[in-house]
């Protein structure tokens, strides 16, 4: 360490001020013991003062030349060399290694760490206990949630099956509806043809409220039959439509009225309707072609349409109320 400014004697209160008035006496070995020790300690850290002392020591060494020369006895050399041989080798070239504590050791040896370490350990134990307790409680909650989830899943599966069944039923219903819509569309199409022929269907007695109409296209191969005031039929077979020619009869279709007694059916005729005499509707009997029609409910004579007539549609505003 070097202190290069002798004027800074008091700048550092912890530093032994430069003993500028004592350096000459130190080189002369004229200081008191305590003074000499103080200066010596300062010289260990102050190169500037050391340089001054070294210069004075050179001067003082000259004084030794003023004394009369005295040769030492020859035995003194032997004594000195023997003393050196007995002395341990100088330990100046290598200082003893110091056991320097590691950084971690110094940190662990510090007072705050020694105080805080037990507290930290206790806190860690408490935290572990709290964590275990919380873990148990959370595990219980998880089990409960798992059970609830299973119940919900079962309920969802059941509802899903129900919904699937409902969807299936709905699909069937949709299919029926679509069939009806298609039939209605076809009937509407048939009815909308301007050159259709119509045949009124009447019951055999005046007491029956049933009535109907049979529309046939201009070539007599297709037709639509519509009925009203029919008794809702108990069976799925509904009413059967027949074409009559003498004793022959030809089944051409089926019509199922709704709960209000209305019904419509689109029919494809095997041959032109112009070749037949009558159209009859019977109730549920599909007997052979030669069997008598004993349950006829509506009938119409095809003679009346031998002279086809146009179906006219009145303007909307001219319809009777």
């Amino acid at each position, binding site marked *: 360490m070097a202190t290069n400014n002798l004027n800074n004697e008091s700048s550092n209160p912890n530093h032994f001020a430069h003993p500028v*008035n004592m350096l*000459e*006496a130190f*080189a*002369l*070995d*004229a*200081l*008191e013991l305590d003074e000499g020790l103080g200066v010596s300690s300062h010289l260990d850290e102050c*190169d500037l003062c*050391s*340089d001054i002392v*070294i*210069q*004075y*020591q*050179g*001067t*003082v*060494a*000259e*004084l*030794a*030349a*003023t*004394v*009369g*020369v*005295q*040769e*030492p*006895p020859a035995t*003194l*050399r032997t*004594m*000195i*060399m023997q*003393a*050196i*041989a007995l*002395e341990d*080798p*100088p330990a*100046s*070239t290598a200082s003893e290694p110091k056991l320097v504590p590691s950084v971690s050791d110094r940190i662990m040896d510090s007072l705050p760490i020694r105080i805080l370490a037990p507290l930290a350990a206790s806190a860690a134990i408490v935290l572990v206990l709290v964590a275990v307790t919380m873990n148990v409680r959370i595990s219980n909650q998880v089990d409960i949630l798992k059970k609830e989830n299973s119940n919900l899943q079962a309920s969802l599966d059941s509802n899903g099956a129900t919904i699937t069944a409902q969807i299936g039923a709905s699909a069937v219903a949709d299919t029926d509806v679509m069939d009806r819509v298609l039939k209605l569309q076809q009937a509407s199409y048939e009815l909308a043809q301007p050159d259709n022929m119509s045949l009124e269907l009447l019951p055999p007695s005046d007491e029956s409220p049933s009535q109907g109409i049979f529309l046939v296209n201009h070539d007599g191969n297709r037709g639509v039959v519509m009925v009203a005031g029919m008794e809702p039929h108990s069976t799925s077979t509904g009413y059967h439509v027949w074409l009559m020619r003498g004793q022959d009869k030809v089944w051409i279709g089926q019509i199922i009225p709704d709960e209000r007694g209305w019904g419509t059916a689109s029919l494809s005729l095997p041959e032109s309707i112009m070749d037949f005499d009558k159209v009859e509707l019977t109730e549920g009997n599909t007997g052979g072609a030669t069997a008598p029609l004993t349950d006829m409910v509506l009938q119409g004579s095809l003679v009346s349409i031998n002279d086809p007539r146009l179906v006219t549609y009145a303007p909307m505003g001219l319809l009777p109320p």
Partner: protein
Amino acid sequence: MVDYESLDDHQLIQLISQVDKDALEALYTRYQTPVYSLAMFMLKKPALAEEVTQDIFLNIWLKASSFNAERGQPRGWIMSVAHHKIIDLIRSQRRTTVNTDPVDYETLDLLPDGGVSTEAQVEQSLDRERIMRALETIPANQREVIMLAYFGGLSQSEMAEKLYLPLGTIKTRVRLAMLKLRTVLENDGYE
């Protein structure tokens, strides 16, 4: 084979620091006379002088590595070690066997030379004359404190008591004497 006689003092001290006993013996050959002479002059007893000379070279042997070759001359360091050891011995002996009379130090040139060669005597005489001339340039009262301190081993307070002077006066004289002696010797070109 190392020719130690061809090595300078710096090199010898360097070898001594490397535990070279032959280097120490070579250094002893060079400095045995001035060291022993100083010890004899200050202690007056050959036994004490031999004892302290042995102690001085043993100290050099052990402390050679502390010598800073860049900042000092080997001769100054060796003679400083020697003087310090002699002073320690004097003070341990309580100065019962040494001459502390300043009058005696004014007759340094009268001290006898014993057992040395003529060539060495001539060289020694030249050095002594140079130092004596330098000392003569210093006022007598200042030269007195230097002699009492260096050769008598007295501390500043002991000198103040012996000379019946204030300690501050002694300190001032020591400082002024050292400054002047240093300046004179430097100007003389021998340091």
